[in-house]
């Protein structure tokens, strides 16, 4: 009995090797550039409807590939046409007129027209909406559809970020026929169609032959989900994956950089990584304590230790690659003696005990250890408390029951969170709120940038949180692949411009 089984196993193994050999020869025989792509991602999306969930992975699969908003954000962070081929804004900043592509179609063959846009926007701002960014749609007061190709949106108040928000995945245009089933069978207007989802492993898209815009060079794109760092490295080295985006196993980068088979790019994300501080809780309600912590943290060592040098320091809550950025990293130079003096001045000559809660991402777990060690140098004894995401959201974010925590805020242009009442920083500043109100009323880009600068200065002076570094966008890809985004101005893996040499 056992020998029969063994023979079967041997035969199966032989058959496998034979098929492998065949595959190898067929690979060498083709001289044409490849037209398929396998992209690795750390996290699997829970579902594929970008208008009903905040998980970054949803947009990283669907944005620009499957679904198109009215406008799109390109690799440089600029607004480019999406489903709308052009748009105008009235002088008072209240009326937006969008002209849609005349021949746009959903993947099920139905026309994508102004009625679908109206449906999408109404659905997102309805009372029962489950859009993760419902606030993006709050300024809308009226949506008119004079003809199938034209949408006129009227706002109740000016909103300088309205176009930017309408270019986000949360504003992807969906059809009433398929909106309810998009989570499992997404139907969009993009250059790729949904093919299949092997739950727990991969999502496969193929080229949409009826796409009315510029057709992509790839005819098949597979997104594979690998959360284990060792497995990520193994999959790249084994050639199973052509590119891994938002790669966070930074210690493996030197190996890939030295291997001519791979290209490594390091760009920027919108993720300001901060030491969030409960400004309402003693002793952090004293600005001298917060400034002492700012002096106690050596960002260079932190970036070297956490990101293996692949990151940029920040001095406030704003990314260096955006217009309007002000460099405030010199405001609190690393100076443990100064930190101790400030603590003594605040009434803590012997420091104090506190808790540093750390969510699961490696940057937080690793960075948290280093931050705690740096704080200990000046007498702040932070007990580390690792928590999982669900618990972090519940206790820290929603419950605001924490002292310190470390987290990357990945939403683009999100400095307005400091103006929100009840946000988990418990920060209250009349000065900041006034600036934020003025920003919302301002359309002129130069004036907006100046206001952004003022906001950054206020946050840095108040040392609201420990401002640490920008999370990098690291992509490890096979040499010969072109068109992958280097920076990540929005949560996306836009592969519409990717090709093989």
């Amino acid at each position, binding site marked *: 009995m056992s020998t029969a089984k063994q023979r079967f196993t041997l035969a199966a193994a032989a*058959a496998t090797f034979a098929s492998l050999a065949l595959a190898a020869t067929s690979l060498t025989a083709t001289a044409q550039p490849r037209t398929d792509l396998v992209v690795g991602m750390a996290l699997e999306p829970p579902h594929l409807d970008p208008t009903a969930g905040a998980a970054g992975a949803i947009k990283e699969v669907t944005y620009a590939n499957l679904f198109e908003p009215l406008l799109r954000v390109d690799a440089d962070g600029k607004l480019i046409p999406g489903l709308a081929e052009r748009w105008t804004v009235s002088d008072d900043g209240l009326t937006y007129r969008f002209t849609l592509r005349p021949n746009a179609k959903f993947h099920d063959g139905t026309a994508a027209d102004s009625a679908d846009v109206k449906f999408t926007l109404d659905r997102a701002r309805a009372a029962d909406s489950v859009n*993760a960014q419902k606030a993006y749609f709050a300024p809308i007061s009226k949506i008119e559809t004079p003809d199938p190709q034209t949408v006129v949106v009227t706002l109740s108040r000016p909103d300088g970020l309205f176009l930017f928000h309408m270019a986000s995945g949360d504003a992807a245009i969906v059809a009433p026929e398929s909106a309810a089933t998009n989570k499992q069978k997404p139907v969009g207007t993009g250059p790729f169609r949904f093919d299949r989802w092997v739950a727990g492993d991969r999502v496969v898209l193929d080229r949409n032959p009826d796409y009315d815009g510029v057709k992509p060079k790839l005819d098949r794109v597979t997104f594979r989900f690998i959360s284990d760092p060792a497995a990520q490295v193994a999959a790249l080295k084994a050639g199973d994956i052509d590119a891994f985006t938002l790669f966070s196993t930074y210690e493996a980068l030197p190996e890939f950089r030295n291997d001519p088979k791979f290209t490594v790019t390091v760009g920027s994300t919108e993720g300001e990584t901060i030491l969030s501080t409960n400004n309402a809780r003693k002793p952090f309600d004293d600005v001298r304590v917060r400034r002492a912590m700012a002096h106690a943290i050596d960002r260079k060592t932190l970036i070297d230790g956490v990101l293996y040098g692949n990151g940029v320091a920040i001095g406030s809550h704003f990314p260096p690659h955006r217009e309007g950025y002000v460099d405030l990293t010199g405001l609190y130079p690393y100076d443990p003696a100064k930190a101790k003096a400030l603590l003594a001045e605040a009434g803590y000559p012997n420091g104090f005990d506190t808790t540093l809660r750390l969510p699961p991402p490696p940057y937080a777990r690793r960075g948290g250890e280093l931050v705690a060690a740096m704080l200990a140098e000046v007498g702040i004894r932070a007990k580390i408390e690792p928590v999982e995401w669900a618990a972090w959201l519940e206790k820290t974010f929603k419950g605001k029951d924490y002292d310190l925590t470390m987290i990357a805020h990945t939403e683009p242009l999100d400095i307005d969170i400091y103006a929100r009442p009840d946000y988990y920083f418990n920060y209250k500043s009349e000065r900041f709120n006034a600036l934020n109100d003025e920003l919302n009323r301002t359309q002129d880009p130069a004036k907006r940038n100046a206001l952004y600068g003022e906001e950054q200065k206020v946050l840095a002076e108040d040392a609201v949180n420990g401002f640490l570094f920008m999370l990098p966008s690291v992509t490890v890809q096979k040499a010969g692949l072109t068109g992958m985004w280097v920076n990540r101005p929005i949560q996306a893996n836009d592969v519409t411009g990717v090709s093989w040499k």
Partner: protein
Amino acid sequence: MLAFLLRRLVSLIVTVWLASIVVFAVLQLVPGDPALLMLGVNAQPDTLAALRGQMGLDQPILTRYLQWAGALARGDLGVSLTYARPVAELVVERLAVTLPLALLSLVISTALALPLGLLAAARRGRGGDWAVLGFSQLGVSMPSFWIAILLILLFSLTLHWFPAGGFPGWGGGIGPALHALLLPALALALPEAAILARVTRTAVLDTLAEDHIRTARAKGVGRAAVLLRHALPNALIPVATVLGLQISFLVAGAVVVENVFTLPGLGRLLYQAIGQRDLIVVQGVVVLLALFVVVVNALVDIACALADPRPKGLSS
């Protein structure tokens, strides 16, 4: 016998019911809001309330338990909060990976262990025996996830014979699917084979010491024939018992190995569902696993009762 079966059935139902209460209660105590997890840090309170309403989380705890348990009693596992798909569908989809993985490793471990055990018994105290005992010691002391990493290093990264992980799905044909499952099955099978080889060796040696073997030898039956025709069939009974025990170990080990090879099996489903606070999926999978264990135990009990008439005569 009927009374015995009835009692088994009642205790089976009670156990699964208790399991459903425990898993439901534990998940209520763990912090975490599925709606907040879904909508993230920018969600507005009214949006969260709307989603909680859709998920049925705005109902009182007792109502939710009764609704879920009532549906469960009718065989309905409910709909996943995150994936928005029926739990039964998700489980069946994941079993398509976990079951073949467990079966394949069961086949591999048996195919390795029986000949090795037999060889060791036949060569007792000599080189072959020591080699098998050495392999077995090594196999028992190395956990399957460590073996998995070693296998990936050799066969995927150095020789490029197998993918380093992932699963193409059965839709792409049996060949690629088996190809993806072979390394993880091997990782899972090696420690089991090590144990099984030892059990086989001991069982065969025990049988060889019995009277009927001596009689057979005295009648002039050859060494090999005695080993294969007389000793092995008798030794298979203890081997089969251990094999049965190993099935639950295989399912447990599959959870770890699935994570190393990023295979979309039941273990990873459970792991992800806990992270996402997908209460309905966690509850359903845990109750199903409890049912599986209880049913296997009951079957073993019934088989024993059938094979040995004494207990039921004494107890009923």
